[in-house]
């Protein structure tokens, strides 16, 4: 029996017609959800090992109720499966998936936080991104989209006092801390957390008994904002999701929308995209080297890594005009053709980079103190990693060569010759080695992209979906009209949904675009790698020392903006 037949006969699932992104999709009744998920993870062929994402779409503006979606990923079959569960708009209830995939914990809390869905059987159902005292559920369509639509904000003293009390870290005496234990509040402002992340750590001496992460301080409502931007004006927002990897966020977004429209970017644009993405992968890893080195107590890596990063940004600035946030990709291509002198600039950069990587190695992986500090720290097994939704270099450090650029190539990555570095120990040292090796591979890709850079247009021909060129708009009336409509009002994209997952520097980055045919995305779901990575911190930190916690946090490579969106 095939998987779809089995799902249909055993769980009354209904297959939908294949959506734009060619992801197998089923509607499933709520009472069949738990057995179906369990079946998909353990029994089905292929087995769907990872819960990639879980969120919902509020149907209020185009129908009724809520639709919760699950994206499951099969490593053996290299395939994604989507499940839809329809819920009523009032008092929606859904059973938890935490017992099947522990990673569901935070995703379900987010579902509760953003949509008000009650999760039955969830061990810790509290708000996660919004503060506890927030009223309403932001991603509901009836929740105001901008501050001007809301009442003026007031904070009476009494309410302020209650809020402060609610966020106070438990005192040693009245918390879960036992005899001889201590509660240490790390963050939201702490040099070791790389941003506004709060960890409530239970210590015995300096040994960690438990860690409770408290996130959401960097939440900016990126998904909500998408709902009132046009498809094109949202591109700059994606830059700021993982703000260390600029163009790497634009790629899955524009690819998802391109799938929706059924267009592809011309070859020159594709190669330009790959080149920029790999440059940004290097940029992201450089910041990681800097901050991780500093976490371990070394003083020099930040300066050495930021020196190269500045040079890299000079190249990016020459090509795109921006540095950290280029906003350079367009739906169907890129914004501008490459400028004069780009080849020399890129060449200069990649020429000097190998020597710099040598320096990083001598400062980090070849330093005995660094090795002693990172070996055996924060070890993840491959099974644990998959269970907890870990991806990217962190997963590859466990020994699984899972790199979407190789395994599910997009943007022509299959035409480049590069290796997927892996390590086997799954600890902080292995992660360091993998990332340093990845920089070298990215350099190879950039070099090949440079060598092959084809001639030709930089934007897709389909005038319906590709932004008209401004220079042409000033020449002929037809383009002018298009430009006026597309920029002033926004382009419409066909209704449907489209998920695109790319290999970002930090792991698998997925953008799920739901379109209802208007100029704005009906719903945009951003699945970032940092979210599951931070979620698994308590699991791997228990039993280590306080200093190791900082090493573990650093080695996982998260960015707060990527975590909280």
């Amino acid at each position, binding site marked *: 029996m095939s998987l779809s037949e089995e799902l249909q006969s055993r769980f009354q699932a209904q297959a939908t017609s294949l959506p734009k992104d060619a992801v197998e999709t089923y509607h499933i009744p709520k009472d069949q959800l738990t057995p179906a998920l369990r079946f998909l993870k353990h029994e089905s062929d292929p087995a769907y090992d990872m819960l990639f994402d879980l969120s919902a779409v509020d149907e209020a503006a185009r129908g009724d109720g809520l639709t919760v979606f699950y994206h499951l990923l099969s490593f053996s079959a290299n395939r994604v499966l989507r499940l839809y569960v329809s819920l009523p708009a009032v008092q929606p209830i859904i059973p938890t998936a935490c017992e099947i995939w522990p990673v569901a914990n935070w995703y379900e809390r987010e579902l509760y936080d953003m949509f008000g869905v009650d999760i039955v059987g969830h061990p810790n159902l509290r708000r996660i991104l919004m503060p506890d005292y927030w009223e309403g559920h932001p991603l509901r369509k009836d929740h105001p989209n901008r501050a001007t639509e809301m009442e003026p904000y007031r904070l009476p003293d009494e309410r302020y006092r209650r809020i402060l009390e609610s966020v106070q870290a438990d005192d040693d005496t009245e918390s879960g801390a036992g005899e001889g234990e*201590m509660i*240490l*509040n790390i963050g939201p402002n*702490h*040099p*070791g957390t790389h941003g506004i992340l709060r960890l409530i750590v239970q210590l015995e001496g*300096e040994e960690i008994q438990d860690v409770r992460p408290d996130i959401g301080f960097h939440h900016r409502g990126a998904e909500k904002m998408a709902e009132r931007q046009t498809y094109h004006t949202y591109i700059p927002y994606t830059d700021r999701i993982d703000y260390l990897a600029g163009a790497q966020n634009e790629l899955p977004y524009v690819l998802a929308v391109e799938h929706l429209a059924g267009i592809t970017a011309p070859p020159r644009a594709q190669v330009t995209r790959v080149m920029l993405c790999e440059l940004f992968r290097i940029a992201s890893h450089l910041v990681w080297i800097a901050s991780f*080195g*500093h*976490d*371990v*107590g*070394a*003083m*020099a890596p930040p*300066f*050495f890594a930021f*020196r190269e990063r500045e040079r890299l940004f000079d190249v990016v600035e020459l090509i795109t005009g921006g540095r950290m946030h280029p906003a350079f990709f367009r739906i169907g291509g890129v914004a501008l053709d490459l400028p004069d002198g780009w080849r020399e600039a890129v060449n200069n950069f990649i020429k000097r980079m190998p020597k710099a990587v040598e320096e990083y190695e001598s*400062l980090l992986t070849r*330093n005995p*103190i*660094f090795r*002693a*500090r990172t070996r055996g720290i924060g070890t993840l097994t491959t099974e644990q990693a998959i269970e907890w939704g870990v991806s990217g270099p962190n997963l590859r450090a466990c020994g699984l060569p899972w790199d979407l650029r190789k395994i599910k190539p997009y943007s022509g990555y299959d035409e480049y010759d590069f290796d997927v570095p892996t390590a086997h120990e799954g600890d902080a040292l292995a992660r360091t080695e993998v990332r340093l090796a990845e920089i070298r591979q990215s350099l190879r890709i950039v070099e090949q992209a440079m060598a092959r850079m084809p001639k030709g247009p930089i934007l897709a021909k389909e005038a319906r979906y590709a932004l008209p060129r401004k220079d042409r708009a000033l020449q002929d009336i037809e383009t002018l009209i298009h430009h006026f409509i597309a920029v002033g009002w926004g382009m419409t994209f066909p209704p449907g949904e489209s998920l695109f997952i790319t290999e970002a520097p930090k792991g698998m980055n997925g953008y799920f675009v739901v379109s209802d045919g208007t100029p704005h995305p009906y719903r945009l779901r951003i699945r970032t790698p940092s979210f599951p990575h931070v979620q698994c911190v308590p699991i791997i930190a228990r039993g280590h*020392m*306080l*200093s*190791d*916690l*900082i090493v573990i946090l650093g080695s996982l490579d998260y960015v707060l903006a990527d975590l909280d969106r």
Partner: protein
Amino acid sequence: MSFGHWFLTLGGMVLMLGGLLVTVAFMVYAERRVLALFQDRLGPNRAGPLGLLQPLADALKLLTKESFAPPFVDRMVYELAPVIVPLTVLMSFAVVPLSDAWWLADLNVALLYVLALSSLGVYGIILGGWSSNSKYPLLGGLRAAAQMISYELPMGLALVGVVMLAGSFSLVDIVNAQDVPFIVLQPVGFLVFMVCGVAEVNRLPFDLPEAENELASGYNTEYGGMRFALFYLGEYMGVLLIASLVTVLFLGGWRGPWLPDVVWFALKTFSVVFLFYWLRTSVPRLRYDQLMDFGWKIMLPAALVNIVITAVVGIAWM
């Protein structure tokens, strides 16, 4: 003692104190410039020519800052702690001979006196961490206590070889005994003393009590303004003290050809200080338990073996 003698001693003390303060201020400046050179940047170069007035600007800023103490601290101990650190180091300098003729006191137990004072110095850090009534300083203070205990011992033992060779605890006698610098005769003692010295003054890779990435500055988190500056002063004077002890005990003190004694002393001392800077830019920090392991399982046995070998070779020699 005559009036003249008292006058000389007092004058010497004032000179020493002033000299030390100026030296330490410029050590901070030198460290910032040297680290910057190591790290491909310029360092402070705005205040005065080459940024040479930077120490003055820093001192002025720290002196004019509001002397704020958090309401939850144990006030008396909190005030006392930052004084202890520089005080003990300053007292140690009394017995350091800068040259054949320049020293404040030539105690016959000078070496024991220095070790005793450096053990007292740690009280400043522990009490600072304790009296702050805050968790990060507390952890920093505890780390300092563990670290000092683990490194005092091998540090003292490393010097036994030197004492055996010189036959005296007096620093002046020890220098006079070095026709060959003791670093040649006591290489293990030198290494152990150097490593323990770095740990003693909480510098990388042994800066665990501070550990800004973990403990957000550790024992001095709750300190600001001049009180913080006193801790800082103590740390840098500590670096200078260790460097001058290394010079006196292992590098032959002021002795050297051609140049004046004091110049030789300064050259040797600042070379050792430079080593501290170099270390700081090159290595990451050890972990608490690794630090303890290193102290007890490597440093201590090495120091003990060194004593035995020195004794055996010494007897055979005689």
